[in-house]
């Protein structure tokens, strides 16, 4: 059982983490070249106009004042308005629109990785040093080695261009307009009872999920294999077998639970990579999540959007790791102590 104190302590730790992230992001943005006032005013603006924009945005104030104002705003969950991406729109609204898109992609990528990675890892461990094991390991090594910016276009070429069976980009066909209820396109199409739209969304998401899933699958299967090999050799496994328990039951009942802890660690740590991967995947497949939002915001010096997006990444990463720690405690209560 996970104690409330443990969770509360970990949640409290979020505060210094986010403070650090906010400070670093603020510093990097304000020390890097590029002037948001110029980006907003555009090439046609006079110097006086640019100066006016700068004053309006408070960019002429001393840096420490801007920093304190920023921290104050963050503390009240006020991320300001977008300078450029969606001019005048509250950043919180933009994030609320975009976040489900990235979460949907990341979760589905993770699920695909787990769905294929776990059985392959177990199979590889059980069939150690057989052809199945070798093939799985080669597959895993390839999956880890292939970068998303290469596998993505390759899959687009194969499935969209040559075979013509999947769409090249986007989240849903241009003919389908679905009201965003949850922001998760698969869920929203189902809620709308629009099966053709669901099929279209599923077809659009398939390649991005595969691209994200390949890396996760490779990593999970490798970790599962090595962890399982270690567990299989443990005394309690031998005892279980000696008691006459079948190999499958021994592996799944006693082996899997114990072998799972290092895999959970990897899933947690890799969630950051998954978000980073989502940035690339969203770019390659033209999906409008917070990954592409961050890239566009950096390119257009949209400070409020960059700051809020990085903070959201940090919160998500930290929360997932908290979830991982909680899962540890469930799997092995000794860890909490």
């Amino acid at each position, binding site marked *: 059982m996970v104690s409330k104190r443990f969770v509360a302590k970990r949640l409290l730790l979020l505060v210094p983490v986010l403070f650090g992230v906010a400070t670093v992001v603020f510093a990097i943005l304000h020390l890097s*070249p*590029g*002037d*948001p006032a*110029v*980006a907003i*005013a*555009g*090439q*046609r*603006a*006079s*110097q006086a*106009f*640019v100066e006016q924009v700068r004053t*309006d945005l408070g960019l002429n104030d001393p840096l420490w004042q801007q920093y304190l104002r920023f921290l104050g705003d963050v503390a009240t969950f006020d991320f300001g308005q*977008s300078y*450029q*991406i*969606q*001019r*005048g*729109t509250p950043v919180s609204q*933009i994030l609320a*629109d*975009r976040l489900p*898109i990235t979460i949907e992609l990341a979760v589905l990528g993770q699920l695909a990785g787990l769905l294929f990675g776990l059985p392959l890892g177990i199979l590889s461990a059980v069939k150690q040093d057989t052809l199945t094991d070798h093939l799985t390991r080669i597959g895993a090594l390839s999956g880890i080695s292939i970068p998303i910016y290469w596998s993505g276009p390759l899959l*687009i070429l194969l499935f*969209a*261009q040559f075979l*013509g069976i999947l*769409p*090249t*980009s*986007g*989240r*849903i066909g*241009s*003919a389908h*307009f679905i009201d*965003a209820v949850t*922001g998760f396109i698969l869920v929203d199409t189902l809620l709308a009872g629009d099966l053709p739209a669901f099929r279209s969304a599923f077809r659009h998401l398939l390649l991005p999920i595969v691209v994200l899933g390949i890396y996760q699958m490779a990593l999970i299967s490798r970790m599962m294999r090595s962890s399982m090999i270690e567990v299989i050799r443990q005394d309690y496994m031998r005892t279980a077998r000696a008691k006459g328990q079948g190999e499958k039951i021994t592996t799944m009942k006693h082996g899997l639970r114990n072998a799972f802890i290092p895999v959970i660690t990897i899933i947690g740590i890799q969630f950051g990579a998954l978000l980073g991967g989502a940035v690339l995947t969203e*770019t390659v497949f*033209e999906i*409008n999540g917070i990954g*592409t939002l961050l890239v566009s915001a950096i*390119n*257009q*010096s949209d400070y409020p959007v960059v700051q809020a997006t990085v903070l959201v990444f940090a919160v998500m990463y930290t929360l997932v790791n908290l979830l991982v720690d909680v899962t540890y405690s469930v799997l092995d209560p000794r860890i909490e102590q």
Partner: protein
Amino acid sequence: MAGNDSQVSRRSFLKAAGTATVAATATSSVAGCLGGGGGGGGTLRYGRGSHSSTLDPQNTTSGEVAKVTNQAYEGLIGFQPGEAALTEALATDWTMDGSNVTLQLREDVTFHDGSDFTADDFIATYRRFVDDDYEYHFEDASAYGPFTLGNWIDSVSKDGDYTLNITLTQTYAPFLRNLAMFCAVVISQDAIEGDVNLDEEMVGTGPFELSELDDANNRIQLTAYDDYWGDAPNVNEVLFLTRGQNSTRAQALVEEEMEIIDGLDPDTIETVEGSDTASVETEQGINIGYMGFNMSRVEAFRDRRVRRAISYAIDTQSIVENIYSGIATQADQPIPPALFGHSDDLSPYPHDPEQAQSLLEEAGYGDGFSFELTTFQNPRGYNPAPLPTAETIRSNLDEVGIDVTIDDRQFSDYLTYTAEGRHDAALAGWYTDNADPDNFCYVLLHPQCEVPQGQDWVSWDTEGYNTSNITAWANQDYMNHVEEAQTTTTQSERADLYNEAVQIAHDEAPWVYIDYAEEVRGVGNGVSNYTISAIGGPHLDLVELE
């Protein structure tokens, strides 16, 4: 009215303007206008590189936004499809008499919110854009507010519901063209003064009205406006779709997921040309790419022989043919060929290193010198490959003993850097705002400040200096011609003045003239009656689908 030399009328504009591009496109455009409503309907999917950051034409300087707002909003005056010439829009007639402009407005026009269009709507639109005293003044109005209207208009009044009188601060010939710009379109007074978020809604009089703004998927859906005053659009619906990567966009066109795409580069042109479902269409653009010498900073550049030497040393023909891969033509003067005032008597500086060397020796720089060339990093329409361009320039100038260091910057940083005059020389470019030569000659090469006697450059920190002129060049003869052209309202006389001004700019070489980029589109086989417009448009209401 027409025939009176001191005035410019709608008729005289229609007669005289846009001579360079009329022939190729007029037939189809006129046919499209006359044949309105004759198409087979359907959905036109237009693919582009960026989503609209707003739907408010007064909140942006972005052409990407204008592509959409131009479908739903109309100005008092418009640009003819595929031409630089002006045409009627919400005004049916106009006169310009010195600093007084009178416009007769179209009657029986309704906005998408159902309200009637009258002179009050223009007055509210104008005041929202530039009038601080107006209760509904838009605090975040773009730099186009003062640039196009605010700096030139002294007052606006109405004479009844359908006559507008605009008094200018001075006689300013390009003003009518400013009225045709996308940012000067008329917004419903009810919307301005009501509870409408114009960043997300469009309340204009145009042929299409907003149906859906889908920011989560970067899509905008427009449908034909049933009560449009003109010919009904040939398509029922327009979908603006965004695909940031050129290759993805081209692939979507080839796969028939889109009907028209823009922003093609040489690689994607090949993709489209190699398909049997779409083709590439091009039209002369109204833009220029150049390298500007900062005379305020580098002493050597104050000598015209040095500037001319560098113009001879740089192989612009090779840049245009090999780096820009034929989607641009060599430039030779500040005014692009599609505009009146462009001189056909000029030709590009030939690549002649010997002549360059000789001029440098004559100027006392035979042993060469060094400078830093500032450039933006990402491709822009008028310069599809900034870094290879800079590399070629460095290599060309190395042959004549000039040592160039390349300083590449992200665009907003580049804008700040050059606006502060910290560059020695810079690659730059310009897309027209209003298809008037003044938009190139005055905006980009006139210092707009006091110039010391007998000097043809100014110090960057001179009060009021126009930092869009990245050269600090201040040639009095040139300035006189351009200023006179601003206050001359007869187009043929203006053309003569600009002909002389560009001759000076060519010979004095404050810029190395590099290219005029073409407008390139990928068009599906099922599309007809589509005309590429370098200014205004795209006129998607005229497009027909099979």
